[in-house]
């Protein structure tokens, strides 16, 4: 009887074992190697000479004001992307879901274009067609109305916001897609009841839609946070981390340390701190997400 119960318990594990081994190999190996390198002096020009230095690389990283600065910029970039992407995603999904909107499939397909575009291509396109000082669309519009023609990507005050907006443009379709799908699951009766109680579109959004979307907002947020936190190619294509260090996020900082400085020990240290930060944030979000689902249930 006990053996049968044990068999029943272990049988499931046998089924998932191949997947677990594969995942451990694919995810665990680079993670382990990255952590190992972070505890060593490893330079690309002398890759096979690796001296164990313990936590020295971490001490150097945390003592480096450039690391702290990159962490701050990454945080601003990530939060900015989450706010804009989620906000715009909800708004667009809500508008698309309105009864009056025709050709929804076409609109949806149009809105998805930025998401399927390679970030580096999107970055280059925005750099030359939108943000460019002389011929960029934005400045063309501004100057048409007698406004100024700023150097969006060359001014420290605007470069980070320009990268946030560009990256959000890339991520908004993901949010829109999820929120639109979620909106279609909200029973019409709720909207009907709201209308009967005199709720307008804004009150309907605030009191009916947003509470219903809460788990989806958390879900989309965590996806966007993880994406924005490690964003590299879009920012690289837009500003290369400049002007100065105003858009040097952690991934660019790690790249500079690893490739330009050839210091793979430090690059892996930065990457591993990114992993730890992301793991903590993801854990918090998942805990919150589960709690939200629990409340809903």
């Amino acid at each position, binding site marked *: 009887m006990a053996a049968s119960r044990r068999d029943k318990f272990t049988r499931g594990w046998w089924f998932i074992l191949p997947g677990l081994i594969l995942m451990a190999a694919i995810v665990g190996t680079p993670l382990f190697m990255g952590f190992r390198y972070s505890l060593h002096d490893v330079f690309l020009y002398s890759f096979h000479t690796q001296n164990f230095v313990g936590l020295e690389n971490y001490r150097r990283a945390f003592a480096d004001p450039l690391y702290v600065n990159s962490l701050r910029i990454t945080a601003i970039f990530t939060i900015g992307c989450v706010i804009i992407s989620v906000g715009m995603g909800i708004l667009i999904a809500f508008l698309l879901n309105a009864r009056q909107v025709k050709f929804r499939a076409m609109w949806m397909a149009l809105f998805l274009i930025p998401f399927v575009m390679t970030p580096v291509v999107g970055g280059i396109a925005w750099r030359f067609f939108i943000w460019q*000082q002389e011929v960029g669309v934005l400045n063309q519009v501004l100057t048409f109305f007698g406004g100024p023609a700023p*150097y969006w990507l060359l001014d420290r005050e605007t470069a980070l916001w320009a990268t946030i907006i560009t990256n959000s443009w890339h991520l908004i379709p993901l949010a829109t897609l999820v929120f639109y799908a979620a909106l279609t699951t909200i029973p019409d009766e709720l909207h009907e009841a709201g209308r009967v109680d005199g709720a307008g579109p804004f009150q309907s959004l605030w009191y009916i839609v947003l509470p219903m979307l809460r788990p989806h907002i958390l879900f989309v947020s965590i996806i966007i946070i993880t994406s924005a936190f490690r964003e590299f190619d879009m920012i690289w294509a837009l500003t290369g981390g400049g002007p100065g260090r105003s858009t040097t996020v952690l991934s660019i900082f790690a790249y500079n340390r690893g490739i330009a400085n050839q210091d793979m020990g430090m690059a892996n240290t930065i990457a591993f701190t990114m992993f730890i930060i992301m793991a903590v944030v993801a854990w918090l979000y998942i805990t919150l997400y589960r709690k939200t689902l629990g409340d809903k249930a």
Partner: protein
Amino acid sequence: MTDLTRKTTIAGGLALGLTMAGSAMAQDVTIRWALHPGAEADAVVNYFAPKYEEETGIKVIGEILPPNQLRDQMSIEAIGGTGRWDLGYHSPGWFGSFADHVVDLTPFIEEHGFDVDAYPQLVIDSHMKSDARPGEIIALPTTPAAPMLIVRRDWFEHPEEQAAFQAEFGRDLTVPATWAELRDVAGFFTRDAGESLAGETLDRAVYGWADALGAGAGITRSFIVVLYSTGVSGWDADFTPDIDNPIVVEAAEYFVDLAENTAPREAQNWGFLEGLDMFRDGRLATATMWPQGVGTVEDEAGSAAGNTGYAPLPVWEDNIAGLTQGTPFLGGGGVFIFDTPNSEEAFKFLKWMLQDNEIEWGKQSEQFSTAGHFASEELRSLRPYYPDFLPAYEQVLESVFIRQGIPEYGAVMWNGTTEFITDVFSGDLTAQQAQTRWVNEMTSAFRRAGYIQ
């Protein structure tokens, strides 16, 4: 069949077989080269590789990689031992990354009679030797290059401009001989749209000076030529940094002032030669130019064609090395041979291209480094501007800084310069703060490498 006939037949068969096998082996050799983009890469891919294959049956495949990925990709392949390329782009500043992966060319040079002395001594020291592999020849120069100053000669010679300059500065308007003079001249020529220049009203703003100021390699390359002109080397023979000298702060503050007040804002987007279009189009009075850009500047569609003056970079007054002209690092590159089974065939190809076809290499690549190039009447008459450009460029190559071939060069000097000037230019740190940080980083790197205690 008599014994003699049989033996003759067997010998003939063997000879034929060996010939065919040899031919098949020659056919099988494919030399692969990781190339930096530019006219020289085009010359290899479009001219020399097909011609060599036609002559020898040996195929040469040139793979042109983006400049900002070249070193990374080559070093990753080298560390991985993939043998993807037989030939690699050699930049003396990067050599530390490849020191363990390339062959010593000395035996090939002796066996195939490559004339090392055809190159100026500074080019030999910089592009053929390295502290990382003492006593060896580790690369052949293909495109050694250093920047120079270009000026709009017609504007400098214009009587109204000369008079105005004389009135403002109390001296003649001449090609700047010192960096301080360059600042005056660049400021003088920086004008807004609507103002007049050389007797004409400007449609668009004109700037006094420009060089690439883009984040990373752009601003680094631009500043480091000023830095080396101050006479600093980075460190001395005992690995004691000399960048703690106050002259480094002076140079940084000078550079920031020059860049902010006389260069177009767009220059902060340029990585290398992009800005020369502005010179060609009559929007720059002076510029720092790498020789690869001369074709752009002299493009007949632009207003600078035939009106461009060439000179070595200005001298830094009171520089600490007693230099008599501006002294940029000797950049550009060469080619090294990875340790692959094709190494000797690869060398034979290089010898054929660079030495047996020395003048043709100059013509096709528009790169000049040997005494033969500068002495060649054929090359001088190749373009209408070469009689002005080539002598000036030859003079530039007489005073260049030879980068130290230690593995840490890229980290401590190139990237150190990047971080230093980025911090100062952006205003994140004062020049003194950035200098202190750089000195500490360099000292720490040398200590980790075991050069100092």
